């Protein structure tokens, strides 16, 4: 049986840019899928197609069992969307924003009012409820935006980079809110550029690149594929590199890689901090002076490096323009593409 969110072969082009090149997804009911990828990978376009904001050129999709292309209005009744840019009216107060959204979800004015108060309380915005959203901090706006997406407690939620641009404290707060939501049984598709975020919130992760899903699995499975943890050492003296390589090979699970000009050595390991201490002791015993040493966990870059052979950073520069234009041009680009 297909999941609460199911997509097959979604294709979307903007002029020459093939934003989606056959995306397949399946999110079982009550679970969280993290869509992980750099800027321009097609994350936002996927969300826009699944939430009826964009019509894919090809492919099929169902959300909450409803065909997205055939019954967009029914889909809209069953989904909540919290976007990359907080979609609130800044000249309206928090309360007015939520009330308006409630009424547009076809609630009666009185019910919308009551629901707004409830959400403001829940999202820790009660004190600011009657101030215009213009005066809100970035974190407060995101919370208000999320609250707006939850007005009717939709069974399926989409969040497009919910924490991009937030400071760590606000990010943590928002994560808590999202976890609470998911524990209530909501199916969630979340896009993110941060492996850590997907790690924290998602049951399953799909890695997207160039408009395709290039890998999927749990966070542990993906990390295992990227080689897991590794130790990075910067030796003080270039002459010590061969000895250091010897030491690291003794501890590592694989080959030690060397960058001569930065004097940096990297080796995949298992064993965490305890192993790191042993490595330091051994290097010390051999009289190798080190400038820096650390245990690194896999990042989005590492996932990308191992899956695609190029890092997310490089891609970032090359494709940021595509996604930015996609986000800004919205439907206009689509029209000219026709």
């Amino acid at each position: 049986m297909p999941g609460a969110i199911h997509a097959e072969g979604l294709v979307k082009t903007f002029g020459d840019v093939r934003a989606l090149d056959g995306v397949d997804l399946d999110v079982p009911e009550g679970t969280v899928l993290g869509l992980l990828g750099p800027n321009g990978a097609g994350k936002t376009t996927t969300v826009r197609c699944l939430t009826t904001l964009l019509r894919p050129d090809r492919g099929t999709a169902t959300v909450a069992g409803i065909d997205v292309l055939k019954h967009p209005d029914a889909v809209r009744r069953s989904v909540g969307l919290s976007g990359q840019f907080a979609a609130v009216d800044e000249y309206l107060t928090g309360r007015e924003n939520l009330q308006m959204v409630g009424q547009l979800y076809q609630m009666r004015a009185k019910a919308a009012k009551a629901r707004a108060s409830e959400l403001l309380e829940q999202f820790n915005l009660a004190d600011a409820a009657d101030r215009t959203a213009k005066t809100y901090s970035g974190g407060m706006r995101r919370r208000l935006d999320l609250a707006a997406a939850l007005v009717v407690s939709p069974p399926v939620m989409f969040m497009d980079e919910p924490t991009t641009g937030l400071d760590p404290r606000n990010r943590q707060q928002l994560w808590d809110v999202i976890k609470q939501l998911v524990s209530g049984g909501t199916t969630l598709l979340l896009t993110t550029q941060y492996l850590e975020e997907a790690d924290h919130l998602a049951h399953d992760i799909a890695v997207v690149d160039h408009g395709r899903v290039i890998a999927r699995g749990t966070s542990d499975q993906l990390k295992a594929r990227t080689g897991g943890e590794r130790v990075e050492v910067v030796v003080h003296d270039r002459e010590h590199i061969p000895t250091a390589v010897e030491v690291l090979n003794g501890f590592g699970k694989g080959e030690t890689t060397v960058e001569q000009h930065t004097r940096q050595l990297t080796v995949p390991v298992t064993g965490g901090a305890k192993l790191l201490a042993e490595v330091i002791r051994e290097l010390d015993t051999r009289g190798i002076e080190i400038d820096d040493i650390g245990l690194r966990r896999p990042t989005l870059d590492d996932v990308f490096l191992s899956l695609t052979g190029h890092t997310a950073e490089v891609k970032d520069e090359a494709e940021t323009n595509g996604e930015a234009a996609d986000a800004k041009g919205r439907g206009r680009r689509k029209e000219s593409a026709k």
Partner: protein
Amino acid sequence: MSTMSDSLVIARRNLIRMSRIPEMVIFGLIQPIMFVVLFTYVFGGSMNIGGSTDPDVYKNFLMAGIFAQTVTFATAGAGAGIADDMHKGLIDRFRSLPMARGAVLTGRTMADLVQTALTLLVLAAVALVVGWRPGFAEPTNFGKIMAGFGLLLLLGYAFTWIGALIGLSVRTPEAATSGGLIWLFPVTFISNAFVDSSQMASWLQPIAEWNPFSATVQACRTLFGDPGVSPSDAWPMAHPVWASIIYSVVIIAIFRTLAVRKYRRAAG
């Protein structure tokens, strides 16, 4: 879902916004008041209306023209507001909601109609202060005067749909403001609003007389009992009330259809 109830929710939202940015409403008022004062005192003494150069005649002739020009300026506000909405994240929120598709536009034009009504109210008061006297040339009554203002509001509402289409077609609110205004100058000046169109060059005269804008001005002069009602045989001048209604309804029908279609297409 109902277009009417969704439109009212959006109209309310826009009215709240307008009340929180009062400078927009105030600037919208200053301009027509300035026109009333400037035209009355600068041009008043040198205008020939139906053979009379009496400044009082011109003053009473002028007001219907200024009223009509003012309501058409709502075009720029509607266009800028919609262009602004289309380029902010909020439009994604609206599009992801199970609401009537045209409500974002209809709600905006309804809010602009309320603003236009308020502007007209203030402007009418200013006109009375500088010496406008309904019934100056022909007898009139309260019902006829209200009917005149009704036609003005209908014309203003029709023009906000042109503004909506402009707002959906440009990239920035600034472009919508200037794009909403520049074409209004020839439309409102090649008309009977500020001068007696029967004295225009013979090639210009029919343009002025068939100008949809002129029909409303002529209708208002007739209903208000103002001087300078054009004696022209051109159909819109001979049947100004009907012409005004027909023109406005046709403009709404055409531009509302185009704007809603464009909005939907933009919505993917």
